[in-house]
Protein backbone atom coordinates (compact mmCIF):
# COMPACT_ATOMS: atom_id res chain seq x y z
CA UNK A 1 0.00 0.00 0.00
CA UNK A 2 2.88 2.30 0.89
CA UNK A 3 4.34 1.67 -2.51
CA UNK A 4 1.11 2.66 -4.26
CA UNK A 5 0.96 5.83 -2.20
CA UNK A 6 4.55 6.77 -3.05
CA UNK A 7 3.96 6.05 -6.73
CA UNK A 8 0.55 7.74 -6.85
CA UNK A 9 1.72 10.70 -9.00
CA UNK A 10 2.87 8.20 -11.64
CA UNK A 11 -0.07 5.81 -11.37
CA UNK A 12 -2.61 8.65 -11.57
CA UNK A 13 -1.14 9.83 -14.84
CA UNK A 14 -0.86 6.34 -16.32
CA UNK A 15 -4.41 5.34 -15.40
CA UNK A 16 -5.81 8.69 -16.52
CA UNK A 17 -4.07 8.42 -19.88
CA UNK A 18 -5.38 4.89 -20.46
CA UNK A 19 -8.93 5.84 -19.48
CA UNK A 20 -8.82 8.90 -21.69
CA UNK A 21 -7.61 6.80 -24.61
CA UNK A 22 -10.46 4.32 -24.27
CA UNK A 23 -13.05 7.04 -23.69
CA UNK A 24 -11.89 8.87 -26.78
CA UNK A 25 -11.95 5.71 -28.91
CA UNK A 26 -15.42 4.77 -27.62
CA UNK A 27 -16.80 8.24 -28.34
CA UNK A 28 -15.20 8.57 -31.76
CA UNK A 29 -17.01 5.54 -33.18
CA UNK A 30 -14.54 3.91 -35.57
CA UNK A 31 -12.63 7.12 -36.06
CA UNK A 32 -15.08 8.53 -38.59
CA UNK A 33 -16.85 11.16 -36.52
CA UNK A 34 -14.84 14.37 -36.19
CA UNK A 35 -16.97 16.01 -33.56
CA UNK A 36 -15.74 18.35 -30.89
CA UNK A 37 -15.24 16.61 -27.55
CA UNK A 38 -14.58 19.24 -24.90
CA UNK A 39 -14.58 16.69 -22.09
CA UNK A 40 -11.21 15.26 -23.07
CA UNK A 41 -9.26 18.45 -22.37
CA UNK A 42 -10.92 18.72 -18.98
CA UNK A 43 -10.17 15.05 -18.26
CA UNK A 44 -6.53 15.44 -19.23
CA UNK A 45 -6.13 18.59 -17.14
CA UNK A 46 -7.83 17.02 -14.12
CA UNK A 47 -5.60 13.93 -14.41
CA UNK A 48 -2.50 16.12 -14.41
CA UNK A 49 -3.71 18.23 -11.51
CA UNK A 50 -4.62 15.04 -9.60
CA UNK A 51 -1.08 13.79 -10.18
CA UNK A 52 0.25 17.15 -8.99
CA UNK A 53 -1.94 16.91 -5.90
CA UNK A 54 -0.73 13.35 -5.28
CA UNK A 55 2.88 14.55 -5.42
CA UNK A 56 2.01 17.31 -2.94
CA UNK A 57 0.26 14.77 -0.72
CA UNK A 58 3.32 12.50 -0.59
CA UNK A 59 5.50 15.57 0.01
CA UNK A 60 3.47 16.78 2.99
CA UNK A 61 3.01 13.29 4.43
CA UNK A 62 6.81 13.03 4.32
CA UNK A 63 8.38 10.70 1.82
CA UNK A 64 10.98 9.73 4.44
CA UNK A 65 8.26 8.17 6.58
CA UNK A 66 7.14 5.80 3.83
CA UNK A 67 8.70 2.39 4.32
CA UNK A 68 9.29 -0.30 1.75
CA UNK A 69 10.57 1.95 -1.02
CA UNK A 70 13.74 -0.18 -1.23
CA UNK A 71 11.88 -2.43 -3.67
CA UNK A 72 12.15 0.30 -6.25
CA UNK A 73 15.92 0.64 -5.84
CA UNK A 74 17.78 1.45 -7.96
CA UNK A 75 15.20 1.81 -10.75
CA UNK A 76 13.15 4.66 -9.39
CA UNK A 77 14.15 7.10 -6.69
CA UNK A 78 11.23 8.63 -4.84
CA UNK A 79 12.63 11.54 -2.85
CA UNK A 80 11.71 15.19 -2.43
CA UNK A 81 13.65 16.09 -5.56
CA UNK A 82 11.54 13.67 -7.59
CA UNK A 83 8.32 14.84 -5.95
CA UNK A 84 9.14 18.47 -6.71
CA UNK A 85 9.64 17.65 -10.36
CA UNK A 86 6.56 15.40 -10.40
CA UNK A 87 4.46 18.31 -9.20
CA UNK A 88 6.10 20.77 -11.57
CA UNK A 89 5.84 18.54 -14.65
CA UNK A 90 2.25 17.55 -13.91
CA UNK A 91 1.36 21.23 -13.45
CA UNK A 92 2.98 22.01 -16.82
CA UNK A 93 1.15 19.12 -18.48
CA UNK A 94 -2.16 20.17 -16.99
CA UNK A 95 -1.82 23.80 -18.08
CA UNK A 96 -0.75 22.69 -21.56
CA UNK A 97 -3.83 20.47 -21.88
CA UNK A 98 -6.02 23.40 -20.84
CA UNK A 99 -4.41 25.50 -23.59
CA UNK A 100 -5.01 22.64 -26.03
CA UNK A 101 -8.66 22.52 -24.99
CA UNK A 102 -9.08 26.05 -26.32
CA UNK A 103 -6.63 26.01 -29.21
CA UNK A 104 -7.43 22.72 -30.96
CA UNK A 105 -11.19 23.26 -31.51
CA UNK A 106 -10.59 26.89 -32.50
CA UNK A 107 -8.18 25.85 -35.25
CA UNK A 108 -10.17 22.74 -36.17
CA UNK A 109 -7.52 20.18 -35.37
CA UNK A 110 -9.32 18.70 -32.38
CA UNK A 111 -8.51 15.00 -32.20
CA UNK A 112 -8.60 13.07 -28.98
CA UNK A 113 -5.15 11.53 -29.43
CA UNK A 114 -3.58 14.85 -28.47
CA UNK A 115 -4.56 14.52 -24.82
CA UNK A 116 -3.53 10.87 -24.44
CA UNK A 117 -0.16 11.61 -26.05
CA UNK A 118 0.29 14.63 -23.80
CA UNK A 119 -0.42 12.58 -20.68
CA UNK A 120 1.91 9.75 -21.70
CA UNK A 121 4.63 12.30 -22.43
CA UNK A 122 4.14 13.83 -19.01
CA UNK A 123 4.39 10.37 -17.46
CA UNK A 124 7.64 9.83 -19.37
CA UNK A 125 9.00 13.11 -18.02
CA UNK A 126 8.07 12.05 -14.48
CA UNK A 127 9.87 8.73 -14.90
CA UNK A 128 12.85 10.62 -16.30
CA UNK A 129 12.97 12.84 -13.22
CA UNK A 130 12.71 9.82 -10.90
CA UNK A 131 15.16 7.57 -12.75
CA UNK A 132 17.92 6.10 -10.60
CA UNK A 133 19.19 3.75 -13.25
CA UNK A 134 20.34 4.29 -16.80
CA UNK A 135 17.71 1.90 -18.15
CA UNK A 136 14.71 3.60 -16.54
CA UNK A 137 16.25 6.91 -17.51
CA UNK A 138 16.28 5.92 -21.16
CA UNK A 139 12.77 4.44 -21.02
CA UNK A 140 11.45 7.67 -19.50
CA UNK A 141 13.28 9.77 -22.05
CA UNK A 142 11.86 7.83 -24.99
CA UNK A 143 8.33 7.72 -23.56
CA UNK A 144 8.48 11.47 -23.22
CA UNK A 145 10.10 12.13 -26.60
CA UNK A 146 7.95 9.81 -28.76
CA UNK A 147 4.81 11.52 -27.53
CA UNK A 148 6.26 14.95 -28.19
CA UNK A 149 7.37 14.01 -31.73
CA UNK A 150 3.78 13.02 -32.50
CA UNK A 151 2.42 16.20 -30.89
CA UNK A 152 4.75 18.28 -33.08
CA UNK A 153 3.29 16.70 -36.21
CA UNK A 154 -0.25 17.23 -35.04
CA UNK A 155 -1.24 19.86 -37.61
CA UNK A 156 -1.40 17.28 -40.34
CA UNK A 157 -2.49 19.69 -43.06
CA UNK A 158 0.51 21.95 -42.52
CA UNK A 159 3.78 21.07 -44.29
CA UNK A 160 5.55 23.22 -41.73
CA UNK A 161 4.36 21.01 -38.90
CA UNK A 162 5.49 17.87 -40.74
CA UNK A 163 8.90 19.40 -41.43
CA UNK A 164 9.28 20.42 -37.81
CA UNK A 165 8.36 16.96 -36.58
CA UNK A 166 10.71 15.22 -39.00
CA UNK A 167 13.63 17.45 -38.01
CA UNK A 168 12.88 17.02 -34.34
CA UNK A 169 12.46 13.27 -34.69
CA UNK A 170 15.67 12.69 -36.66
CA UNK A 171 17.85 14.89 -34.47
CA UNK A 172 16.15 13.64 -31.32
CA UNK A 173 16.75 10.00 -32.17
CA UNK A 174 20.34 10.81 -32.99
CA UNK A 175 20.79 12.48 -29.62
CA UNK A 176 19.14 9.50 -27.91
CA UNK A 177 21.60 7.21 -29.70
CA UNK A 178 24.53 9.32 -28.50
CA UNK A 179 23.20 9.18 -24.97
CA UNK A 180 22.79 5.42 -25.14
CA UNK A 181 26.25 4.93 -26.56
CA UNK A 182 27.67 7.11 -23.80
CA UNK A 183 25.93 4.97 -21.17
CA UNK A 184 27.22 1.83 -22.88
CA UNK A 185 30.79 3.14 -22.61
CA UNK A 186 30.25 4.07 -18.96
CA UNK A 187 28.88 0.60 -18.31
CA UNK A 188 31.89 -0.91 -20.06
CA UNK A 189 34.27 1.13 -17.92
CA UNK A 190 32.57 0.67 -14.56
CA UNK A 191 30.26 -2.35 -14.75
CA UNK A 192 27.33 -0.34 -13.34
CA UNK A 193 24.06 0.88 -14.79
CA UNK A 194 22.67 2.41 -11.60
CA UNK A 195 23.59 6.04 -11.11
CA UNK A 196 24.81 5.64 -7.52
CA UNK A 197 27.05 2.69 -8.43
CA UNK A 198 28.34 4.58 -11.45
CA UNK A 199 29.19 7.49 -9.18
CA UNK A 200 31.21 5.27 -6.81
CA UNK A 201 33.11 3.65 -9.69
CA UNK A 202 33.84 6.98 -11.37
CA UNK A 203 35.18 8.27 -8.05
CA UNK A 204 37.58 5.30 -7.80
CA UNK A 205 38.74 5.73 -11.38
CA UNK A 206 39.20 9.49 -10.97
CA UNK A 207 41.25 9.14 -7.79
CA UNK A 208 43.31 6.42 -9.46
CA UNK A 209 44.02 8.67 -12.43
CA UNK A 210 45.01 11.48 -10.07
CA UNK A 211 47.61 9.40 -8.22
CA UNK A 212 48.87 7.92 -11.46
CA UNK A 213 47.87 4.35 -10.64
CA UNK A 214 45.68 2.05 -12.65
CA UNK A 215 42.85 1.54 -10.21
CA UNK A 216 39.84 0.76 -12.34
CA UNK A 217 37.14 -1.46 -10.83
CA UNK A 218 37.14 -3.71 -13.89
CA UNK A 219 39.88 -5.55 -15.76
CA UNK A 220 40.27 -2.56 -18.05
CA UNK A 221 42.76 -0.95 -15.67
CA UNK A 222 44.16 2.33 -16.94
CA UNK A 223 41.97 2.24 -20.04
CA UNK A 224 38.90 2.91 -17.89
CA UNK A 225 39.72 6.65 -17.53
CA UNK A 226 39.46 7.55 -21.23
CA UNK A 227 36.36 5.35 -21.62
CA UNK A 228 34.64 7.24 -18.80
CA UNK A 229 35.64 10.52 -20.41
CA UNK A 230 34.21 9.55 -23.82
CA UNK A 231 31.12 8.16 -22.19
CA UNK A 232 30.65 11.38 -20.25
CA UNK A 233 31.02 13.54 -23.37
CA UNK A 234 28.42 11.50 -25.26
CA UNK A 235 25.98 11.50 -22.34
CA UNK A 236 26.41 15.24 -21.92
CA UNK A 237 25.78 15.83 -25.64
CA UNK A 238 22.59 13.78 -25.47
CA UNK A 239 21.28 15.62 -22.42
CA UNK A 240 22.29 19.06 -23.64
CA UNK A 241 20.32 18.34 -26.82
CA UNK A 242 17.20 17.77 -24.76
CA UNK A 243 17.59 21.01 -22.81
CA UNK A 244 18.25 22.67 -26.22
CA UNK A 245 21.49 24.47 -25.37
CA UNK A 246 23.91 25.82 -27.99
CA UNK A 247 25.48 24.07 -30.01
CA UNK A 248 22.67 21.48 -29.94
CA UNK A 249 19.84 24.00 -30.32
CA UNK A 250 19.32 23.94 -34.11
CA UNK A 251 16.11 21.93 -33.97
CA UNK A 252 14.44 24.15 -31.38
CA UNK A 253 13.19 27.15 -33.39
CA UNK A 254 11.83 25.01 -36.23
CA UNK A 255 10.22 22.43 -33.99
CA UNK A 256 8.72 25.07 -31.68
CA UNK A 257 7.39 27.12 -34.57
CA UNK A 258 5.93 24.22 -36.53
CA UNK A 259 4.23 22.52 -33.61
CA UNK A 260 0.72 23.57 -32.58
CA UNK A 261 1.15 26.18 -29.84
CA UNK A 262 -0.06 24.06 -26.86
CA UNK A 263 2.44 21.36 -27.88
CA UNK A 264 5.13 24.06 -28.13
CA UNK A 265 4.37 25.23 -24.62
CA UNK A 266 4.56 21.65 -23.37
CA UNK A 267 7.92 21.15 -25.08
CA UNK A 268 9.30 24.39 -23.67
CA UNK A 269 8.15 23.49 -20.17
CA UNK A 270 7.99 19.77 -19.47
CA UNK A 271 10.65 18.45 -21.83
CA UNK A 272 13.09 21.07 -20.62
CA UNK A 273 12.33 20.58 -16.92
CA UNK A 274 12.55 16.79 -17.23
CA UNK A 275 15.87 17.08 -19.03
CA UNK A 276 17.22 19.42 -16.35
CA UNK A 277 16.13 16.99 -13.63
CA UNK A 278 18.07 14.17 -15.23
CA UNK A 279 21.03 16.41 -16.08
CA UNK A 280 21.32 17.42 -12.42
CA UNK A 281 21.02 13.85 -11.21
CA UNK A 282 23.58 12.49 -13.67
CA UNK A 283 26.09 15.29 -13.03
CA UNK A 284 25.75 15.35 -9.26
CA UNK A 285 25.29 11.65 -8.56
CA UNK A 286 27.49 10.05 -11.25
CA UNK A 287 30.07 12.80 -11.60
CA UNK A 288 29.86 14.42 -8.19
CA UNK A 289 33.36 13.49 -7.03
CA UNK A 290 36.04 16.08 -6.25
CA UNK A 291 37.96 15.49 -9.46
CA UNK A 292 34.92 15.78 -11.77
CA UNK A 293 33.54 18.90 -10.09
CA UNK A 294 36.84 20.80 -10.12
CA UNK A 295 37.15 23.70 -12.54
CA UNK A 296 40.46 22.46 -13.97
CA UNK A 297 39.66 18.79 -14.59
CA UNK A 298 35.91 18.45 -14.50
CA UNK A 299 32.62 19.42 -16.07
CA UNK A 300 32.02 22.93 -14.60
CA UNK A 301 34.22 24.63 -17.21
CA UNK A 302 32.53 22.75 -20.07
CA UNK A 303 29.05 23.61 -18.80
CA UNK A 304 30.10 27.23 -18.22
CA UNK A 305 31.18 27.60 -21.85
CA UNK A 306 27.97 25.99 -23.07
CA UNK A 307 26.00 28.34 -20.81
CA UNK A 308 27.79 31.46 -22.07
CA UNK A 309 27.36 30.41 -25.71
CA UNK A 310 23.72 29.46 -25.19
CA UNK A 311 22.73 32.72 -23.53
CA UNK A 312 24.60 34.97 -25.93
CA UNK A 313 23.68 33.27 -29.20
CA UNK A 314 20.02 32.80 -28.22
CA UNK A 315 19.58 36.39 -27.03
CA UNK A 316 21.28 37.89 -30.10
CA UNK A 317 19.25 35.78 -32.53
CA UNK A 318 15.99 36.21 -30.63
CA UNK A 319 16.20 39.98 -31.02
CA UNK A 320 16.20 39.64 -34.81
CA UNK A 321 13.09 37.47 -35.15
CA UNK A 322 9.99 38.58 -37.02
CA UNK A 323 7.78 35.90 -35.50
CA UNK A 324 6.79 36.14 -31.86
CA UNK A 325 6.48 32.35 -31.62
CA UNK A 326 10.02 31.89 -32.94
CA UNK A 327 11.22 34.61 -30.58
CA UNK A 328 9.72 32.65 -27.67
CA UNK A 329 11.55 29.55 -28.94
CA UNK A 330 14.88 31.40 -28.81
CA UNK A 331 13.89 32.80 -25.44
CA UNK A 332 13.48 29.25 -24.15
CA UNK A 333 17.01 28.49 -25.39
CA UNK A 334 18.28 31.55 -23.52
CA UNK A 335 16.54 30.36 -20.35
CA UNK A 336 18.32 27.01 -20.71
CA UNK A 337 21.53 29.07 -20.67
CA UNK A 338 20.63 30.81 -17.39
CA UNK A 339 19.72 27.46 -15.88
CA UNK A 340 23.09 26.04 -16.96
CA UNK A 341 24.76 28.86 -14.99
CA UNK A 342 22.96 27.38 -11.99
CA UNK A 343 24.28 23.93 -12.93
CA UNK A 344 27.83 25.34 -12.87
CA UNK A 345 27.12 26.79 -9.42
CA UNK A 346 26.13 23.34 -8.10
CA UNK A 347 29.77 22.25 -8.42
CA UNK A 348 30.64 24.45 -5.39
CA UNK A 349 27.53 24.52 -3.29
CA UNK A 350 25.22 21.78 -4.48
CA UNK A 351 22.15 22.70 -2.46
CA UNK A 352 22.24 26.43 -3.21
CA UNK A 353 22.77 25.90 -6.95
CA UNK A 354 20.14 23.17 -7.25
CA UNK A 355 17.53 25.06 -5.26
CA UNK A 356 18.14 28.09 -7.49
CA UNK A 357 17.52 25.93 -10.56
CA UNK A 358 14.36 24.40 -9.09
CA UNK A 359 12.99 27.81 -8.15
CA UNK A 360 13.83 29.17 -11.59
CA UNK A 361 12.11 26.22 -13.28
CA UNK A 362 8.97 26.85 -11.22
CA UNK A 363 8.74 30.48 -12.32
CA UNK A 364 9.80 29.61 -15.88
CA UNK A 365 7.12 26.92 -16.21
CA UNK A 366 4.17 29.13 -15.33
CA UNK A 367 5.49 32.18 -17.20
CA UNK A 368 6.23 30.22 -20.39
CA UNK A 369 2.86 28.47 -20.41
CA UNK A 370 1.33 31.89 -19.85
CA UNK A 371 3.29 33.54 -22.66
CA UNK A 372 2.31 30.86 -25.18
CA UNK A 373 -1.23 31.05 -23.81
CA UNK A 374 -1.23 34.79 -24.42
CA UNK A 375 -0.13 34.15 -28.00
CA UNK A 376 -2.92 31.59 -28.43
CA UNK A 377 -5.48 33.99 -27.01
CA UNK A 378 -4.40 36.76 -29.39
CA UNK A 379 -5.46 34.77 -32.47
CA UNK A 380 -8.66 33.19 -33.68
CA UNK A 381 -9.81 30.74 -36.33
CA UNK A 382 -8.00 31.26 -39.62
CA UNK A 383 -5.83 34.03 -38.17
CA UNK A 384 -3.36 32.61 -35.68
CA UNK A 385 -1.21 35.30 -34.10
CA UNK A 386 2.38 34.47 -35.01
CA UNK A 387 4.33 37.61 -35.94
CA UNK A 388 4.79 40.82 -33.98
CA UNK A 389 2.57 42.61 -36.53
CA UNK A 390 -0.30 40.28 -35.65
CA UNK A 391 -0.21 41.58 -32.09
CA UNK A 392 -0.23 45.29 -32.94
CA UNK A 393 -2.81 47.29 -31.08
CA UNK A 394 -4.13 44.38 -29.03
CA UNK A 395 -3.45 46.20 -25.76
CA UNK A 396 -5.68 49.13 -26.68
CA UNK A 397 -8.55 47.15 -28.17
CA UNK A 398 -8.59 44.14 -25.86
CA UNK A 399 -6.83 45.07 -22.63
CA UNK A 400 -8.07 41.93 -20.85
CA UNK A 401 -6.30 39.68 -23.35
CA UNK A 402 -3.10 41.71 -23.49
CA UNK A 403 -2.58 42.30 -19.77
CA UNK A 404 -1.73 38.70 -18.74
CA UNK A 405 0.46 38.33 -21.84
CA UNK A 406 2.42 41.41 -20.75
CA UNK A 407 2.74 40.07 -17.21
CA UNK A 408 4.24 36.76 -18.40
CA UNK A 409 6.67 38.50 -20.73
CA UNK A 410 7.83 40.74 -17.89
CA UNK A 411 8.36 37.65 -15.75
CA UNK A 412 10.39 35.99 -18.51
CA UNK A 413 12.43 39.17 -18.84
CA UNK A 414 13.08 39.08 -15.10
CA UNK A 415 11.44 42.32 -14.06
CA UNK A 416 10.68 42.55 -10.32
CA UNK A 417 8.44 41.68 -8.55
CA UNK A 418 7.63 38.69 -10.75
CA UNK A 419 8.70 35.06 -10.34
CA UNK A 420 11.25 35.40 -13.12
CA UNK A 421 13.18 38.11 -11.29
CA UNK A 422 13.71 35.99 -8.18
CA UNK A 423 14.60 32.95 -10.29
CA UNK A 424 17.44 34.87 -11.93
CA UNK A 425 18.36 36.40 -8.58
CA UNK A 426 18.81 33.06 -6.81
CA UNK A 427 20.77 31.51 -9.68
CA UNK A 428 23.10 34.49 -10.03
CA UNK A 429 23.51 34.63 -6.25
CA UNK A 430 24.52 30.96 -6.14
CA UNK A 431 26.96 31.48 -9.03
CA UNK A 432 28.44 34.59 -7.39
CA UNK A 433 28.89 32.89 -4.03
CA UNK A 434 30.46 29.91 -5.79
CA UNK A 435 33.14 32.28 -7.07
CA UNK A 436 32.08 32.29 -10.73
CA UNK A 437 32.05 36.08 -10.97
CA UNK A 438 32.81 36.37 -14.71
CA UNK A 439 30.02 33.91 -15.52
CA UNK A 440 27.65 35.87 -13.27
CA UNK A 441 28.45 39.12 -15.05
CA UNK A 442 27.92 37.49 -18.47
CA UNK A 443 24.59 36.07 -17.34
CA UNK A 444 23.53 39.45 -15.96
CA UNK A 445 24.48 41.29 -19.17
CA UNK A 446 22.56 38.68 -21.14
CA UNK A 447 19.42 39.16 -19.11
CA UNK A 448 19.62 42.88 -19.89
CA UNK A 449 20.05 41.99 -23.56
CA UNK A 450 17.10 39.62 -23.32
CA UNK A 451 14.80 42.32 -21.98
CA UNK A 452 14.99 44.01 -25.40
CA UNK A 453 12.92 41.48 -27.31
CA UNK A 454 10.37 40.96 -24.54
CA UNK A 455 9.81 44.70 -24.40
CA UNK A 456 9.49 44.72 -28.20
CA UNK A 457 6.33 42.62 -27.84
CA UNK A 458 5.00 45.09 -25.28
CA UNK A 459 5.72 47.95 -27.69
CA UNK A 460 3.67 46.20 -30.37
CA UNK A 461 0.90 45.38 -27.90
CA UNK A 462 0.48 48.88 -26.51
CA UNK A 463 2.12 51.44 -28.77
CA UNK A 464 1.66 50.26 -32.34
CA UNK A 465 -1.35 50.16 -34.60
CA UNK A 466 -1.74 47.56 -37.36
CA UNK A 467 -0.74 48.90 -40.79
CA UNK A 468 -3.33 49.96 -43.33
CA UNK A 469 -5.19 46.92 -44.65
CA UNK A 470 -3.49 44.56 -42.22
CA UNK A 471 -5.78 42.28 -40.23
CA UNK A 472 -6.66 43.54 -36.78
CA UNK A 473 -5.97 41.14 -33.93
CA UNK A 474 -9.14 39.70 -32.46
CA UNK A 475 -8.76 37.41 -29.47
CA UNK A 476 -10.47 34.05 -29.41
CA UNK A 477 -12.90 33.15 -26.65
CA UNK A 478 -12.17 30.06 -24.62
CA UNK A 479 -12.81 29.27 -21.00
CA UNK A 480 -9.98 26.71 -20.99
CA UNK A 481 -7.35 29.19 -22.10
CA UNK A 482 -8.66 31.77 -19.63
CA UNK A 483 -8.39 29.30 -16.76
CA UNK A 484 -4.85 28.32 -17.78
CA UNK A 485 -3.82 31.97 -17.95
CA UNK A 486 -5.47 32.76 -14.61
CA UNK A 487 -3.69 29.86 -12.88
CA UNK A 488 -0.34 30.81 -14.42
CA UNK A 489 -0.79 34.49 -13.55
CA UNK A 490 -1.70 33.53 -9.98
CA UNK A 491 1.53 31.57 -9.61
CA UNK A 492 3.71 34.20 -11.28
CA UNK A 493 2.42 36.88 -8.92
CA UNK A 494 2.36 34.64 -5.85
CA UNK A 495 5.95 33.44 -6.32
CA UNK A 496 7.04 36.99 -7.07
CA UNK A 497 5.43 38.46 -3.96
CA UNK A 498 6.38 35.67 -1.58
CA UNK A 499 9.51 33.99 -2.94
CA UNK A 500 10.70 32.70 0.42
CA UNK A 501 8.04 29.97 0.69
CA UNK A 502 8.76 28.58 -2.78
CA UNK A 503 12.48 28.83 -2.10
CA UNK A 504 12.22 26.81 1.09
CA UNK A 505 10.32 24.11 -0.84
CA UNK A 506 13.00 24.18 -3.56
CA UNK A 507 15.76 24.01 -0.95
CA UNK A 508 14.22 20.97 0.75
CA UNK A 509 13.90 19.28 -2.66
CA UNK A 510 17.50 20.14 -3.54
CA UNK A 511 18.82 18.95 -0.18
CA UNK A 512 17.34 15.49 -0.72
CA UNK A 513 19.60 15.07 -3.75
CA UNK A 514 22.56 15.33 -1.39
CA UNK A 515 21.15 12.96 1.19
CA UNK A 516 19.82 15.72 3.45
Amino acid at each position, binding site marked *: MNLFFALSPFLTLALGA*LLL*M*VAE*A*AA*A*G*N*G*RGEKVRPGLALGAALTCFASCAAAAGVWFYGVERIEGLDVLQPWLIIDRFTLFFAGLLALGGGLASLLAGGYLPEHQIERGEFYALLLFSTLGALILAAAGDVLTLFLGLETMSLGVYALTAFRRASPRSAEAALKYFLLGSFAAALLLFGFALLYGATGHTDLAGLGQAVKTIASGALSGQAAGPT*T*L*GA*AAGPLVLFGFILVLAGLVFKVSAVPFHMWTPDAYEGAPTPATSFMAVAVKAGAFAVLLRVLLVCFGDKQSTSWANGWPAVIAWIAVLTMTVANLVAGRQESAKRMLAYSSIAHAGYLLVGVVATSRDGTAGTSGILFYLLGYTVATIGAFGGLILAGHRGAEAVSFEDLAGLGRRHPAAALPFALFLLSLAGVPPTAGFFGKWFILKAAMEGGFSVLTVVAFLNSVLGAYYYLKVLVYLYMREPGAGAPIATPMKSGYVNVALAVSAFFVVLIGLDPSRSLSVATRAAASLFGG
Partner: protein
Amino acid sequence: MFATYGPMFLLLTVAALIALLFYTGATVLGPKNPTPDKMKPYECGSESSGGNHLKLSVKFYLTAILFVVFDIEAVFIYPWAVHFKTLGWTGLISMFSFLAVVIVALVYCVKKGALEWEK
Protein backbone atom coordinates in the same frame (compact mmCIF):
# COMPACT_ATOMS: atom_id res chain seq x y z
CA MET B 1 43.31 -4.05 -22.38
CA PHE B 2 45.07 -6.24 -24.93
CA ALA B 3 44.91 -9.19 -22.56
CA THR B 4 41.13 -8.88 -22.45
CA TYR B 5 40.40 -8.20 -26.07
CA GLY B 6 43.43 -9.97 -27.63
CA PRO B 7 41.58 -13.14 -28.70
CA MET B 8 38.90 -10.99 -30.32
CA PHE B 9 41.45 -9.10 -32.40
CA LEU B 10 43.01 -12.44 -33.36
CA LEU B 11 39.61 -13.71 -34.51
CA LEU B 12 39.03 -10.58 -36.58
CA THR B 13 42.48 -10.87 -38.19
CA VAL B 14 41.98 -14.54 -39.07
CA ALA B 15 38.53 -13.84 -40.50
CA ALA B 16 39.88 -11.00 -42.64
CA LEU B 17 42.79 -13.14 -43.84
CA ILE B 18 40.53 -16.03 -44.88
CA ALA B 19 38.19 -13.71 -46.76
CA LEU B 20 41.13 -12.08 -48.51
CA LEU B 21 42.62 -15.49 -49.38
CA PHE B 22 39.43 -16.80 -50.99
CA TYR B 23 38.80 -13.60 -52.87
CA THR B 24 42.29 -13.26 -54.37
CA GLY B 25 42.42 -17.03 -54.95
CA ALA B 26 39.27 -16.92 -57.06
CA THR B 27 40.57 -13.92 -59.02
CA VAL B 28 44.01 -15.40 -59.70
CA LEU B 29 43.17 -19.08 -60.23
CA GLY B 30 39.71 -18.95 -61.78
CA PRO B 31 39.27 -19.18 -65.60
CA LYS B 32 38.11 -16.00 -67.30
CA ASN B 33 36.07 -15.63 -70.49
CA PRO B 34 34.38 -12.21 -70.49
CA THR B 35 31.72 -11.45 -73.12
CA PRO B 36 29.83 -8.13 -73.42
CA ASP B 37 26.62 -9.76 -72.18
CA LYS B 38 28.33 -11.11 -69.09
CA MET B 39 29.77 -7.72 -68.21
CA LYS B 40 26.36 -6.02 -68.13
CA PRO B 41 24.85 -5.37 -64.75
CA TYR B 42 21.75 -7.53 -64.23
CA GLU B 43 22.44 -9.84 -67.11
CA CYS B 44 19.59 -12.11 -66.17
CA GLY B 45 15.86 -11.39 -66.37
CA SER B 46 13.95 -9.19 -68.73
CA GLU B 47 14.11 -5.44 -69.23
CA SER B 48 12.17 -3.64 -66.53
CA SER B 49 9.04 -1.78 -67.53
CA GLY B 50 6.88 0.75 -65.72
CA GLY B 51 7.66 2.94 -62.77
CA ASN B 52 10.05 1.69 -60.15
CA HIS B 53 8.28 3.40 -57.26
CA LEU B 54 5.40 1.17 -56.39
CA LYS B 55 2.81 2.65 -54.06
CA LEU B 56 1.76 0.36 -51.26
CA SER B 57 -1.35 0.89 -49.23
CA VAL B 58 -0.73 2.34 -45.79
CA LYS B 59 -2.94 -0.44 -44.43
CA PHE B 60 -0.05 -2.88 -44.79
CA TYR B 61 2.08 -0.65 -42.63
CA LEU B 62 -0.58 -0.37 -39.94
CA THR B 63 -1.17 -4.11 -39.83
CA ALA B 64 2.55 -4.83 -39.74
CA ILE B 65 3.27 -2.37 -36.94
CA LEU B 66 0.34 -3.69 -34.88
CA PHE B 67 1.63 -7.22 -35.40
CA VAL B 68 5.10 -6.24 -34.22
CA VAL B 69 3.75 -4.39 -31.18
CA PHE B 70 1.52 -7.22 -29.95
CA ASP B 71 4.05 -9.89 -30.86
CA ILE B 72 6.80 -8.25 -28.82
CA GLU B 73 4.40 -7.77 -25.93
CA ALA B 74 3.52 -11.45 -26.03
CA VAL B 75 7.22 -12.28 -25.70
CA PHE B 76 7.19 -10.79 -22.20
CA ILE B 77 4.74 -13.46 -21.06
CA TYR B 78 7.16 -16.34 -21.73
CA PRO B 79 9.75 -15.63 -19.01
CA TRP B 80 6.92 -15.10 -16.54
CA ALA B 81 5.35 -18.44 -17.52
CA VAL B 82 8.70 -20.21 -17.07
CA HIS B 83 9.25 -18.74 -13.59
CA PHE B 84 5.57 -18.70 -12.67
CA LYS B 85 6.06 -20.35 -9.26
CA THR B 86 9.12 -18.43 -8.07
CA LEU B 87 7.65 -15.06 -9.06
CA GLY B 88 4.54 -15.73 -6.99
CA TRP B 89 1.87 -13.12 -6.35
CA THR B 90 4.10 -10.17 -7.29
CA GLY B 91 4.66 -11.69 -10.70
CA LEU B 92 0.98 -12.49 -11.14
CA ILE B 93 -0.12 -8.95 -10.27
CA SER B 94 2.60 -7.37 -12.45
CA MET B 95 1.71 -9.57 -15.41
CA PHE B 96 -2.00 -8.93 -15.09
CA SER B 97 -1.53 -5.17 -14.92
CA PHE B 98 0.71 -5.46 -17.98
CA LEU B 99 -1.93 -7.53 -19.76
CA ALA B 100 -4.59 -4.99 -18.80
CA VAL B 101 -2.56 -2.29 -20.54
CA VAL B 102 -2.19 -4.51 -23.62
CA ILE B 103 -5.93 -5.17 -23.65
CA VAL B 104 -6.65 -1.46 -23.41
CA ALA B 105 -4.41 -1.00 -26.45
CA LEU B 106 -6.26 -3.77 -28.28
CA VAL B 107 -9.66 -2.26 -27.46
CA TYR B 108 -8.33 1.08 -28.70
CA CYS B 109 -7.21 -0.45 -32.00
CA VAL B 110 -10.55 -2.20 -32.56
CA LYS B 111 -12.56 0.89 -31.68
CA LYS B 112 -10.44 3.08 -33.94
CA GLY B 113 -11.01 0.66 -36.81
CA ALA B 114 -7.32 -0.14 -37.22
CA LEU B 115 -8.09 -3.83 -37.80
CA GLU B 116 -10.74 -3.29 -40.48
CA TRP B 117 -9.26 -4.07 -43.85
CA GLU B 118 -12.11 -2.61 -45.90
CA LYS B 119 -14.00 0.48 -44.90
